[in-house]
């Protein structure tokens, strides 16, 4: 997702991540017609209303183990990483 003048890279991270994301969002929104913005907001609200977040894993739950390939095809497993120490696992949707 590349928008001129709204890059998330670089020096913007002097500010908090949330603030940078907010500015990024405002930059994106400014380039979209209002009906598209409405569609996106509606979809987000619907997802919030669906209660999907309540079904997600929480603090105190056992973390489901996984073994997944990195881009080179090497398998990486959570249990093996945990043998070295705590692991930060972050899920993201994509590069676009």
């Amino acid at each position, binding site marked *: 997702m590349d928008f001129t003048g709204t890059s998330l890279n670089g020096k913007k991270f002097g500010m908090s991540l949330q603030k940078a994301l907010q500015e990024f969002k405002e930059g994106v929104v400014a380039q979209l017609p209002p009906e598209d913005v409405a569609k996106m907001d509606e979809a987000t609200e619907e997802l919030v209303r669906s209660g999907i977040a309540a079904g*997600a894993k929480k603090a105190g*739950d056992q973390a489901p183990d996984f073994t997944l390939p990195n881009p080179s095809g090497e398998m990486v497993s959570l249990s093996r990483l945990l043998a070295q120490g705590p692991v930060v*696992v972050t899920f993201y949707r994509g590069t676009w």
Partner: protein
Amino acid sequence: MQAYQDILPQIKALGASMVAISPQTPERSLSMAEKHDLGFEVLCDAGNQVARRYGLVFSLAEPLRELYSKKFGAHLPDYNADKSYDLPMPGTFIVAPDGFIQYAFVDPDYTLRLEPKEILNSLRKTAGA
């Protein structure tokens, strides 16, 4: 991702590691790792199978499918390894060495993320520092 990359040295200094997981094809993940020069593993979760076990998966709302394709150049079936419109909610979990989740941040609003400093605060508690 860049924000998490910035705190990676501190994460490592606390004896922890970090992985990012996405449903994208390995090619897309690789291009992201290169683009941001990431020092952590980006893992390919084809079909969102792991994200589903963490309770994060939803299908992109119908009205947004065309919008994402046309406005963002993101025709999801081309990006996702399983050709679907499924996406994970953004979520970050700190897993303690005993395998239990010590800190969880999940929000259906894709514009919200866990602040990097919260990750470090939580890890410091584990490290007893």
